[in-house]
């Protein structure tokens, strides 16, 4: 392969040693490559075992030319329809049985060009004069000539254009002239309707914006990329919270969709990610209330759910579970059975208070832990397993006679049924000192 051929070309003598080496290595390779139709790599992938079925039909492979054909190569003149001039070129041609190939040069079909419209002077005066009078006729002529020469490659055209104009300006002029020309020449407006230039006209400002955005993305530093990712995650979180409101959203909702890479640094609308959890929760409540208002109508149970979610958004799953456990221990329904406004407000307040309690417990443990390290023993032993209310059913203060309403006979669902353990008031067992 490579070694001997190179030496051959260079005219160097081949050392016998290397020759035998080459010869030895080659048969080895040949045996590996032996299986017809699969490349060496694939063969190795399949574990070096021949496939049970031939994967490629052998006839699809390169065949040696049939023996009855006589193939010769001749240096012949070439004619191509792509060439408009008289230049006579020659090249090697594969001649079979003394019959040179007929037909056009095989690559002539690739000689495509753009149909740049040509206008007459009349047409120019009638339809194409630039209303803003920036473009003169000469300039337009030059532009069109360049367009044809360079197949609408506007960057090249911009480079060659004698006056300095931006690519977008050139594009704009070319497309608007062509559009006007098409409209003027068309027999009926209908046949133009599907022409791409009419359907989607070129907009210079949009093009500029698009290019600017692209360049901004390209030029973003890694630091900015990270910041963008963070902000997008935050925005996603906020939009998910406001998902219901979005369907009925009024236009004055701060448009979080603008947080594209177009202006990464101007996102002052979003709260900074470093806001303390408590203030974030207040913002959550306010935004949840706002989004509920925007629905114009909602069920109170739904409203409560949203507010509970807002309260839980700043805390982890474990804390949420602990809140729910505490509610159960206290004998409170996780979802109120009679969700009136007062009940829902009270429920929400209770949840907030439980969160405060859990935070305090954590704080207490931490400060207790540190005081342990100091060598003293804290005044209180830990409450077992953080379930402050676990082993004690609570007293409700007074006996609770459940007043049955008159005419209630049915087995309808009761709003709440006290369990027997709640009937006797018992003292709290949590460590009292």
């Amino acid at each position: 392969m490579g070694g001997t051929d190179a030496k051959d070309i260079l005219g160097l003598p081949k050392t016998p040693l290397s020759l035998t080496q080459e010869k030895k290595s080659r048969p080895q390779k040949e045996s590996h490559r032996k299986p017809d139709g699969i490349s060496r790599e694939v063969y190795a992938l399949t574990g070096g075992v021949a496939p049970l079925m031939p994967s490629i039909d052998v006839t699809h492979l390169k065949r040696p030319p049939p023996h009855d054909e006589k193939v010769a190569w001749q240096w012949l003149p070439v004619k191509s329809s792509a060439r408009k001039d008289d230049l006579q070129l020659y090249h090697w041609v594969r001649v079979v049985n003394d019959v040179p190939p007929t037909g056009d040069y095989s690559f002539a079909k690739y000689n495509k060009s753009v149909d740049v419209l040509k206008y007459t002077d009349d047409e120019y005066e009638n339809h194409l004069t630039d209303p803003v009078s920036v473009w003169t006729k000469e300039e337009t002529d030059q532009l069109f000539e360049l367009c044809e020469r360079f197949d609408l490659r506007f960057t090249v055209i911009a480079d060659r254009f004698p006056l300095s104009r931006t690519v977008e300006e050139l594009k704009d002029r070319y497309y608007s002239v062509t559009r006007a020309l098409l409209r003027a020449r068309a027999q009926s407006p209908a046949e133009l309707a599907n022409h791409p230039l009419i359907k989607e006209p070129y907009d210079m400002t949009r093009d500029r914006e698009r290019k600017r955005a692209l360049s901004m993305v390209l030029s973003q530093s890694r630091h900015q990329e990270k910041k963008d990712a963070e902000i997008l995650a935050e925005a996603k979180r906020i939009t998910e919270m406001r998902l219901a409101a979005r369907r009925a959203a009024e236009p004055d909702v701060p448009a979080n969709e603008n947080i594209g890479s177009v202006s990464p640094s101007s996102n002052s609308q979003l709260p900074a990610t470093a806001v303390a959890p408590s203030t974030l929760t207040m913002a959550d409540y306010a935004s949840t209330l706002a989004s509920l208002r925007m629905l114009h109508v909602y069920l109170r149970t739904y409203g409560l759910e949203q507010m509970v979610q807002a309260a839980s958004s700043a805390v982890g799953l474990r804390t949420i579970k602990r809140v729910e456990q505490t509610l159960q221990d206290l004998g409170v329904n996780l979802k109120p059975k009679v969700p009136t406004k007062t009940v829902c407000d009270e429920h929400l307040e209770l949840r907030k208070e439980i969160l405060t309690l859990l935070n305090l417990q954590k704080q207490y443990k931490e400060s207790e832990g540190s005081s342990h390290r100091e060598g003293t023993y804290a005044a209180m032993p830990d409450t077992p397993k953080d379930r402050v209310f676990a082993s004690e059913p609570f007293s409700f203060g007074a006996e609770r006679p459940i007043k049955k309403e008159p005419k209630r006979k049915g087995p309808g669902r009761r709003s709440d049924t006290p369990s027997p353990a709640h009937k006797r008031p018992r003292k709290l067992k949590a460590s009292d000192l």
Partner: protein
Amino acid sequence: MTKSDEKKKLKDIEISVPLVYGNIAYWLGKKASEYQSHKWTVYVRGATNEDISVVIKKVVFQLHSSFNNPTRVIEEPPFEVSESGWGEFEIAITLHFHSDVCDKPLSLYHHLKLYPEDESGPLTMKKPVVVEHYDEIVFPDPCESFLARVQNHPALTFPRLPSGYNLPAPMQVDDNGKKKRGDTKDHSLGQWFTSFSEADELLQLAAARQQVQAHIAKLRRQISLLEGQNQTIKTGSDP
């Protein structure tokens, strides 16, 4: 704001309509066949059995697709659908409001219950299975004309208006006969209706809050005590 200027909205005023929705199902006993074992009624009513058609224009009950015309539109109170069948499935109840109330409909979902909780007990034809849920529709920003129309209506909780605020007199005259028809006080199934009272739940919540608050106070004391102790340790004096 999408509504026109003449319908001004007030801030922080909400109108709520307490509702009860659910179903009552009777076992047909001897007359039960394989496909028609129960006779049931799914409904939406005012929680105090008052007439909710003051707010609700129509209710659309979406039944299981195996029913004929599974989309039942009820445009007059009582807003209910009675059918016979054997299966339990989810029913989508969509409430459509009058145009001055709200343009958007609101959906509730109710799982039809035919069989009693206690599976081992015998089915009886006398007592139906009743499942009801309480909820409230909240209109957070009602427009003036709506407020004017419904003031003093027993079906809903009317907010306290800011002092000095005068509502225009209601334009429609309430038709007494219609009002009577719309409330479910004399409903044939009324004996089975649950009466939901917030008092019990409020009591429960108040007691719970008291406990939690007591614990919070205690923990705060303990924490400040500990911190005091830590301070004295650090300064080296005996506690």
